Each structure stands twice: as structure tokens, then as C-alpha cells.
């Protein structure tokens, strides 16, 4: 499976540098290495959810309890979580650090991913959620930290879009 282990490791290390102690995730191809790294790390609580909606509640609870969390999700998982993003995170001013695998965008070969690729940024923009396209290795530590800093200052969700060039090695 040509998902980049090296870049997954850099992303994981960046989350650790941000003092992220809890990760929620639902298995997704581009995220498998990140999930394994979290599983192997005794200092990380990995919550494997049944549906992404739950992750918004879990991160909200962790935030109110003073623990930094991040959410690993596919863009289709972000779609599944839109109601709680609106009616919990935005309503109650909860910061969310969402790392979203950007499927169905440039270079996508799977037809079933493509509608999701087209809808991702318009939906994020409709919710006024700031977006960073994480495309290059050098950007990883700085931009993940920046995303968390903005989320905590604004008490608002932020989206880091994990691109194909970063996650997939052809």
C-alpha cells in the first residue's frame, strides 16, 4: 500500500509536538500509518469511532476537560460530521483540529471519490472553517502547529487538508 510512511511519521510527530494526547479516527486508507503510530504510542489515546459524528463529541469533551485532541478523518467523514460541527463545535465555540484526507481531488482515479472531492472545500467555506492545504513535507510541523494555535485562539474548528502528493507514493 503506497501510503507514505515517512510523511505519516512527520505528521504524527507534529501532532505530538502540539501536545495532542487524544486522537479519534475511523479507518481510512491514507490514515492507516497514522492510526498504527497512535496505537503503538502508550502516551496517545486513540479512539476508534463507529461514525465521525462521535468524534466531534469526543473532542469537545476532551477540550472542556483540558486535553488537546485531533481528529483524523476522510473528507467523506467530515461530511458525516457536519451537523455536530455546526450544532456543537460552532454553537459552543469548541476548537477542533481536523486532519482531513482530501480524496477525490487532483489525480484521483477512483470515480466514487470524486463527488466528495468536489464538495469538500465549498462545504468547509460554507461553515467558515479555515483551510490549509498541506502539500509539502517542509510545511508539516509549522502548519499543523499553526492550525492548532488558530483553533485555540478562535475557539473554532480548523481543517488541514492532507493532499495526495503528501500521503500517496505512486
Amino acid at each position, binding site marked *: 500500500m503506497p501510503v507514505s510512511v515517512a510523511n505519516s511519521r512527520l505528521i504524527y510527530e507534529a501532532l505530538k509536538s502540539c501536545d495532542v494526547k487524544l486522537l479519534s479516527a475511523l479507518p481510512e486508507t491514507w490514515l492507516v500509518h497514522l492510526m498504527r503510530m497512535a496505537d503503538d504510542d502508550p502516551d496517545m489515546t486513540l479512539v476508534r469511532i463507529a461514525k465521525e459524528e462521535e468524534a466531534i*463529541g469526543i473532542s469537545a469533551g476532551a477540550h472542556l476537560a483540558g486535553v488537546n485532541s485531533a481528529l483524523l478523518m476522510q473528507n467523506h467523514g467530515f461530511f458525516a460530521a457536519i451537523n455536530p460541527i455546526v450544532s456543537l463545535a460552532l454553537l459552543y*465555540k469548541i476548537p477542533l483540529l481536523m486532519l482531513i484526507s482530501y480524496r477525490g481531488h487532483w489525480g484521483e482515479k477512483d470515480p466514487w471519490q470524486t463527488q466528495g472531492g468536489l464538495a469538500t472545500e465549498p462545504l468547509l467555506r460554507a461553515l467558515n472553517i479555515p483551510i490549509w492545504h498541506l502539500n509539502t513535507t517542509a510545511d508539516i510541523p509549522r502548519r499543523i502547529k499553526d492550525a492548532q494555535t488558530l483553533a485555540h485562539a478562535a475557539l473554532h474548528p480548523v481543517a488541514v487538508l492532507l493532499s495526495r502528493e503528501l500521503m500517496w507514493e505512486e
Partner: protein
Amino acid sequence: MLRADALEAIYPDLERRIVVTIMGAVAAELYTLGHRHNFFYLEHAMGLASSMGLGIALALPEQPVIVLDGDGSLLMNLGTLSTLARYKPGNLLHIVFDNESLLSVGGFPTATSTGTDLAGIARAAGVPRVAETDTPADLKAAVEEALASNTLTTIVSKVEAVGPKTFHMDLPLLENRFQFRRYLEGLRGQAHE
């Protein structure tokens, strides 16, 4: 039984503990019994009170966390039972008031009115302790046993589909949110001393 009577019976067990409630009648009834900074009323996002409770319970493993859920809310997020059961936080108590109705939005019957068994679903999901109660005294006893057990417990309590006269709460959502976060911050501070 009336949920208001059930809540009154367990109020002393809730008073000093972290409590997350769903919206609507449960929130208003608990608020009327006496608001405390350790109570968080999730006034929307139906189904997610138990997920919030899980996040808090994992973040503060030394602190008991009590979630007050309802049949309509739980049916919207049945997957939560499998996630709770997977991580089994021993400090989480999940109480479901089942009035077989979406009372706060006009009283439409839910699937528990036609036989869906939430306690059975919780057991089958793998929740290690599941209890069913139908009087305030039984509920209080079940709550106290659950808290003493240090084991993830779901209690399903059948209640009448009767709500409060008013749903008014003199507490803006964000005031509740910041009060609650401050309260939890205080608990963390104590833990570190």
C-alpha cells in the same frame, strides 16, 4: 415513574459529579432542581452527550462522569454504545431515560415504543454492566452501585412521557460552556497538586 421524580431521587449523586445532559426536558428538569457548574447541558447535537461524556471520561480518568441520555437521542447515535463498550471507561455512567417518545418536539413515539430494547442493544454492544430500573428508588440504588463498581454501566430507566411546564433556563449556552470548562480545569489542578 416521572423523570422529574427520578432526577430528584438521584440529584444528591449528581450534585458533586461531572454531568452531561441531552437537550430539552432532561436539561430543564435538572436545571430546575439546581444548576451547578459541574453540569453541562448539550442543547443541540442530538445523540452526542454520550460521546462528550466519553471524551471527558478518557481525559479525566480519575473523575466519575455521568451522562443523562434519552431514547430519541441514543437512537440517533447507536454506534456510541459500541464505542463506549470498546474503551469501557470505568468512570463513565450512562443513564438513559426512555419515555418512548420525542417529547420535546411534540411527543412522537420512538422505536422503543414498538419494542426496540435499548438495554438489550447496550448489552449486545458489549457494555459490561447494564441495568434496568422503573422506580426512583431502584434508579438511585442502581446509580450508587454503578458508581461503586468502577465499571462502565448503562442504566435504562423507563419514564412517563411527561415534561416540565417550561423549558426555560436562565443560562446562556456559552456561559454554561465556560463555567463547565473552568470547573473541569479546577479538577485537573487538584489532581496535579
